[in-house]
C-alpha cells in the first residue's frame, strides 16, 4: 500500500491465536475461573470483609452487566468458611411483659434441642398434672378442705334447725329460700290446727320465728366470704400439688442447661407460671368442678376463642411455654452468607404473622418470622441495591438496623395504622453483620450525594471494572473464564477456535482491540447461544463457526432498523453519495444504539458560506436539535479557522453547517472533523471525494481526536457501500488514536485486504483534507503566503476576498469598531 496513512488489513482486527492455548477444548481446562480481573474491586471487598468495626459495609458498584455477586460471594464464602456459626435465635414468652417476647441467643444447635426438650416436657405436663390431681392424696386433701368448709356451714344450719326444733319449728327449703314452719309429728301443722292454737302460743311461735330468721339471715350474709375463703384454700392446695409435680419435670432440664443462665431463668419462669395457672392447663374437666377459679384461657393466646387446636402443643395454654426457634444454626458449619433476592422490609427485619380467630387477627411469639438480617446475623448479607431501594421502607429499615446495631421487628403496617390489632414488640437482637450491596455506579454516586447516612454505613467502595486487559495473561485467563462458564451451565466443551472467537467478540464488545469486556451477561449469552447452535448442528464440541453463527444470528435478530436505514440509503430515499466529488458536502458517521445493538450510519453534512462577520452557524443548534457537545465541536471550528487564516484580518464570512435529513437530535463532537472538512471545502470551493466517510473530533489546533464507536461507524459505511457495490475507491477516515480500538468484521477486513475498501488513520485535519481533496495542504512561506494550488491557498484567498468585500460594504468593520449595522 503506497499511502502511508492507509491501514493494512491486519491492523483492523486483532486476532486471537487459537494455537496459543494449551488445551484442545475447555473440558481439559483444569482450573476454570468465575471471575477474571477486577483487582481493584477484589481488594476492596477483601478489605471490607476483613475490616471490623461499624460502618465498614461494602457497596459493590459496577455496570449492571458485570457479575459482581460471584466475586463478592467467593470472598465471603472463603471468609465465612473460617468463622464459627453464630448463635441460634429463639423467642420465648416474657411472663412479666406479655407483649414483649424475649429473645434467647443460644449456642448453635442448642435452640432446636431446647425447643424439642421443652415440647417433650409440655407433652408430659398435662398427663403428669392430671395424674397428680386425680391422686388419692389430692382428692383426700381437697375433700378435707371442702368438708371442713361444708361442715362448718352444715353445722350452722343444723344448729339452727336444732334450735328451731326445740321451739316446735322446722327449717324448710322452699324453691326460693327458707321458711320456719311449726311442726307436729314430723309434719307441717295443717292451717286449720294452727288457727286452733291459743293466741298466746301463736305469739310465742311468731317471736321464735323472727328470732330464728335473723340468725338465718346472718348465716346467709356470711356465705360469700366463706365461699371466697374456700376458693383460696383450694387454690393454695392446687399450687402445692402442682409445685411438687412440676418440679420433678423441670429439674432435669435445668440440670442439662445449667450453664445457660437465660435458659434456666426462662425455665424457672415457665415453672412458676405453670404452678400459678395449673387449673387452666388442666382445663375445666380436670380435678373437679372448674368453676372455682376461672378456667378462661390466657388473653391474646391463639385458639383461646377459636377453632380446634391442631396439636396439643398448639393449645393456647401450652403455646406460651414453648421455645420458638427463629434462626437455627444447628446444621451450619460456619458463618452464614445470605443473599436475599427480595429485600422487602419484612424479609429484612423479620415479621410477625397473624392468624384469624373468629374474625380478629391475633398473634403470639410463636408467629415471629426471621428476616434476612436475623438469618445472616454473625455473618454476611448480600443485597441488590436497586431492589432494596424500590421496596417500600426496606432501605430505611436496613439503615436503622445497621445504625442501631440491632434488629427490631417492626411492621410498617402498624406505623401507618393499616393494621389495628393486638401486636407484639419482640425484644431486639444485637446485630453483628457485614452487608454487601450490589448496584450500579450511578446509584452509588446518587446515594453518596443525597443520603447523609450512606457514607457512614457503607464505607467501603468496591468498584468493578467493565473491561480488562487483553494483553499479557489476559487471553489465557479469559479462556479459563469461558471454561468456567461452560462448566457452570453444563454446556458442550468449547474448542480453541471457539474460545478465540469468543475472546475476539469480547474485545469487540469492549470496543477495544486491547481490552476485553467484563460484562458477564453478554459473555454468558454468547457462550450459551454458541452452545445452542452447536446443538442444532449436532456437534459435540462448540467451535469457532458456532460462535460466529451465534454472533451473526444475534446481529440479524437485532438489526432490523439498521437494515431498513441502509436500504433507504440504497434506494436513494436518504441522500448519501458514495462516489464522485462535491464542494461543501461530506459523509459523516454516527452511531445509533438500540438496546444492546449499536450500528453506524453515514449522514450527509453540508456547509455553505457567504459574507459575514465570522460566525459559523450550526443549524442543528439553532433549532435545538444539537446537544451541547455538538455545539462545542462546531464552535471549535471557528477557533481553528480564525487561528489559521485570520490572524491579521477579520474573518468576514458567515458559514452554516447542517446534518442533512436528520430529524432527531445530534449529540457528540465526533462529526466536528467532518464539519471542518466540509467548511474548508465550501470556503475554498474544493471538491471532496464522496467515496470517503469521515469521523473524528477536532481541536483548535487541527488535531483529530479519538471518538467512540469507531467499529460501528466504519462498518456502517462499509455496509452502505457494499450494497451499492464496492468500487475500490471507498473508505473511511478515522482518527489515528482510534486504531487500537479497531475490531472490525472479518468480511470488512477481507475487503480491505483485497483493496476494495480502505481505512485511513489521520492525526490531523491536514492529513485528512489531503486524502479527501487530493490536494496538498501547503505551508506558509517566508512571506506568509501559501503555495499556489494548495488547500490552504484556496481557502486563504477566498477569505481574503471576503474580507476585502466586507471592508467595502461595511466600513469600520475590522477596524476594531463596535458599530454593527
Amino acid at each position, binding site marked *: 500500500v503506497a499511502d502511508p496513512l492507509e491501514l493494512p488489513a491486519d491492523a483492523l482486527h486483532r486476532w486471537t491465536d487459537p494455537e496459543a492455548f494449551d488445551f484442545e477444548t475447555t473440558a481439559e481446562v483444569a482450573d476454570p475461573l468465575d471471575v477474571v480481573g477486577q483487582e481493584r474491586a477484589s481488594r476492596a471487598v477483601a478489605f471490607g470483609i476483613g475490616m471490623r468495626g461499624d460502618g465498614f459495609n461494602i457497596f459493590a458498584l459496577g455496570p449492571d452487566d458485570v457479575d459482581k455477586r460471584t466475586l463478592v460471594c467467593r470472598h465471603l464464602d472463603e471468609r465465612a468458611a473460617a468463622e464459627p456459626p453464630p448463635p441460634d435465635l429463639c423467642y420465648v414468652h416474657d411472663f412479666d411483659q406479655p407483649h414483649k417476647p424475649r429473645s434467647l441467643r443460644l449456642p448453635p444447635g442448642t435452640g432446636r434441642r431446647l425447643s424439642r426438650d421443652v415440647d417433650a416436657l409440655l407433652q408430659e405436663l398435662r398427663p403428669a398434672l392430671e395424674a397428680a390431681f386425680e391422686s*388419692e392424696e389430692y*382428692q*383426700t386433701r381437697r*375433700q378435707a378442705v*371442702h*368438708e371442713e368448709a*361444708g*361442715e362448718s*356451714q*352444715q353445722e*350452722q*344450719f*343444723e344448729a339452727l*334447725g336444732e334450735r328451731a326444733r326445740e321451739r316446735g319449728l322446722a*327449717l*324448710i*327449703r*322452699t*324453691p*326460693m*329460700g*327458707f*321458711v*320456719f*314452719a*311449726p311442726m307436729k309429728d314430723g*309434719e*307441717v*301443722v*295443717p*292451717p286449720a290446727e*294452727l288457727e286452733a292454737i291459743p293466741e298466746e302460743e*301463736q305469739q310465742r*311461735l*311468731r317471736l321464735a*320465728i323472727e328470732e330464728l*330468721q335473723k340468725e*338465718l*339471715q346472718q348465716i*346467709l*350474709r356470711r*356465705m360469700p366470704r366463706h365461699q371466697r375463703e374456700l376458693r383460696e384454700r383450694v387454690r393454695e392446695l392446687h399450687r402445692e400439688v402442682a409445685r411438687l409435680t412440676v418440679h420433678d419435670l423441670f429439674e432435669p432440664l435445668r440440670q442439662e442447661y445449667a450453664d445457660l443462665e437465660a435458659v434456666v431463668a426462662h425455665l424457672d419462669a415457665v415453672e412458676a407460671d405453670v404452678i400459678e395457672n395449673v387449673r387452666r392447663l388442666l382445663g375445666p374437666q380436670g380435678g373437679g*368442678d372448674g368453676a372455682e377459679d376461672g378456667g378462661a384461657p390466657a388473653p391474646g393466646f391463639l385458639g383461646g376463642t377459636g377453632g380446634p387446636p391442631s396439636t396439643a402443643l398448639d393449645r393456647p395454654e401450652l403455646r406460651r411455654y414453648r421455645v420458638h426457634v427463629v434462626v437455627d444454626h444447628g446444621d451450619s458449619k460456619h458463618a452464614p452468607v445470605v443473599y436475599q433476592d427480595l429485600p422487602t422490609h419484612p424479609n429484612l427485619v423479620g415479621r410477625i404473622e397473624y392468624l384469624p380467630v373468629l374474625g380478629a387477627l391475633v398473634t403470639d411469639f410463636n408467629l415471629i418470622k426471621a428476616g434476612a438480617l436475623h438469618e445472616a446475623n454473625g455473618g454476611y448479607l448480600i443485597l441488590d441495591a436497586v431492589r432494596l431501594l424500590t421496596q417500600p421502607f426496606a432501605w430505611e429499615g436496613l439503615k436503622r438496623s445497621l445504625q442501631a446495631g440491632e434488629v427490631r421487628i417492626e411492621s410498617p403496617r402498624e406505623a401507618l395504622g393499616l393494621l389495628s390489632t393486638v401486636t407484639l414488640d419482640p425484644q431486639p437482637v444485637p446485630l453483628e453483620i457485614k452487608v454487601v450491596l450490589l448496584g450500579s455506579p450511578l446509584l452509588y454516586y446518587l446515594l453518596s450525594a443525597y443520603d447523609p447516612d450512606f457514607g457512614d454505613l457503607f464505607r467501603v467502595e468496591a468498584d468493578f471494572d467493565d473491561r480488562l486487559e487483553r494483553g499479557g495473561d489476559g487471553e489465557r485467563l479469559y479462556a479459563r473464564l469461558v471454561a468456567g462458564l461452560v462448566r457452570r451451565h453444563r454446556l458442550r466443551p468449547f474448542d480453541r477456535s471457539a474460545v478465540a472467537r469468543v475472546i475476539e467478540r469480547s474485545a469487540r464488545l469492549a470496543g477495544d482491540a486491547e481490552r476485553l469486556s467484563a460484562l458477564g451477561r453478554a459473555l454468558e449469552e454468547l457462550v450459551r447461544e454458541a452452545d445452542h447452535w452447536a446443538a442444532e448442528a449436532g456437534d459435540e464440541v462448540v467451535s469457532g463457526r458456532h460462535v460466529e453463527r451465534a454472533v451473526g444470528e444475534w446481529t440479524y435478530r437485532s438489526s432490523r432498523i439498521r437494515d431498513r436505514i441502509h436500504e433507504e440509503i440504497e434506494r436513494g430515499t436518504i441522500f448519501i453519495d458514495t462516489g464522485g466529488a462535491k464542494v461543501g458536502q461530506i459523509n459523516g458517521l454516527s452511531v445509533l444504539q438500540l438496546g444492546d445493538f449499536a450500528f453506524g450510519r453515514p449522514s450527509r453534512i453540508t456547509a455553505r458560506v457567504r459574507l459575514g462577520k465570522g460566525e459559523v452557524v450550526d443549524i442543528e443548534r439553532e433549532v435545538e436539535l444539537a446537544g451541547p457537545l455538538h455545539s462545542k465541536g462546531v464552535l471549535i471550528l471557528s477557533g481553528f479557522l480564525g487561528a489559521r487564516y485570520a490572524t491579521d484580518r477579520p474573518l468576514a464570512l458567515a458559514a452554516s453547517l447542517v446534518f442533512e435529513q436528520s430529524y432527531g437530535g445530534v449529540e457528540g463532537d465526533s462529526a466536528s472533523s467532518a464539519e471542518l472538512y466540509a467548511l474548508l471545502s465550501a470556503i475554498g470551493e474544493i471538491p471532496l471525494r464522496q467515496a470517503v466517510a469521515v469521523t473524528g473530533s477536532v481541536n483548535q489546533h487541527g488535531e483529530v481526536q479519538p471518538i467512540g464507536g469507531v467499529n460501528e461507524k466504519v462498518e456502517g459505511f462499509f455496509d452502505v457501500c457494499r450494497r451499492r457495490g464496492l468500487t475500490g475507491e471507498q473508505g473511511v477516515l478515522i482518527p489515528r488514536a482510534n486504531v487500537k480500538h479497531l475490531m472490525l468484521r472479518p468480511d470488512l477486513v477481507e475487503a480491505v485486504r483485497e483493496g476494495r475498501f480502505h481505512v485511513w488513520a489521520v492525526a490531523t485535519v491536514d492529513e485528512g483534507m489531503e486524502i479527501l481533496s487530493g490536494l496538498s495542504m501547503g505551508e506558509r512561506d517566508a512571506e506568509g503566503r501559501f503555495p499556489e494550488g494548495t488547500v490552504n491557498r484556496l481557502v486563504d484567498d477566498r477569505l481574503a476576498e471576503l474580507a476585502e468585500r466586507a471592508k467595502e460594504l461595511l466600513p469600520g468593520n475590522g477596524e476594531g469598531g463596535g458599530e454593527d449595522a
Partner: protein
Amino acid sequence: VRQEPAAERGRDRTIRRILVALDASADSAAALEAATALAALFGAELQGLYVEDLNLVRLPELSLVTEIDLLTGEPRRLLPSELEGHLRRQAARARRSLERVAGRARVRWSFRVVRGRVGAELLAAGGDLLTLGVRGHSPRRGPGSTARELLEATRASVLLLRRGSRLGRTVHAVFDGSRDDREAVRVAAELARRQGAPLTVLAKSAAAEVQTVLEEVLADAEGRPHLEVQIAPLPDGPAELAAAVRRQGCGLLVLPRAGEALDPEALIQLVRRAHCPVLVVG
C-alpha cells in the same frame, strides 16, 4: 356357711320396674342417668315420679310463715300461686329430662306427679328398685331426710347417688357377714356379668368362705359368660370404705341392707364421699 332363710331364697329378685324420684335437681339428674343405665341393662321399665311435697304446699296457708329469700336474705310473703306455679314447672322439667334420657337409651318409661309426703309417696309407688339422688354437702339445700326414711321403710333395692357420680363398669360388692351379703354378691355378679366387667368382692371374712359363696352364686350362672372376680379385704368403717372404693375407681358399690356398720346416716355419708353410685340390696 350360713343358710339363707327359705323365704328369701324363693323370692323373685328380677328387676322389672325401676322407680326414679325426680325433682329437677342435679342430684336427681344423676339418679336418672344411673337408673336409665340400669333399666337398659335389665330391660326394665323406668318409672319417673315427681312428688309435690305436702309440707311445701301447706306453707302459704300458714299466716305465721314468711320466706327468707336465698339470694337477698330478705323476708317476704310466700304466695300460694307462686309456689304452685313453681311446682308445676319443676314437674314439667323433670318429665322433659326423663323423656330425653330414657328416649336416648330406648328404655320404656312412664311419669307421674303425685302430691303428698315424699317418702310415703315413693314407698307407695313401689318398684323393684328405687333410685334417689342424695344431696351433696351444699348447705343451701338444707338437710334431706327422704333417703333416710326410705332406707328404713322399703324392702326394695335402693340406688343412691349424689350429683357428679356416674354408673361405671367396675362393680364392688360388700360381703360383711350380715344377713343380705350373699344377695349383694349375687346382684353385683349379675350386674358385672351383664356388663362384661370385673367384680371385686370386699370381704370381711376368710377368703375360703367367700370362695364358697361365690361358687354358689356362680353356680346359678352356668353357661353364662366368664366373670373375673377379685377378693379384697373389707375396710373398717364407712369413711375407710369410701376412700377404698374411690381409690379403686369403683363404678358401683353394692351393699347388703343389713350391713351392720351401715345405718342410714352412715350410708348417706358413704354416698357423699364414695363418688360412685351405691346400691343397697336385701
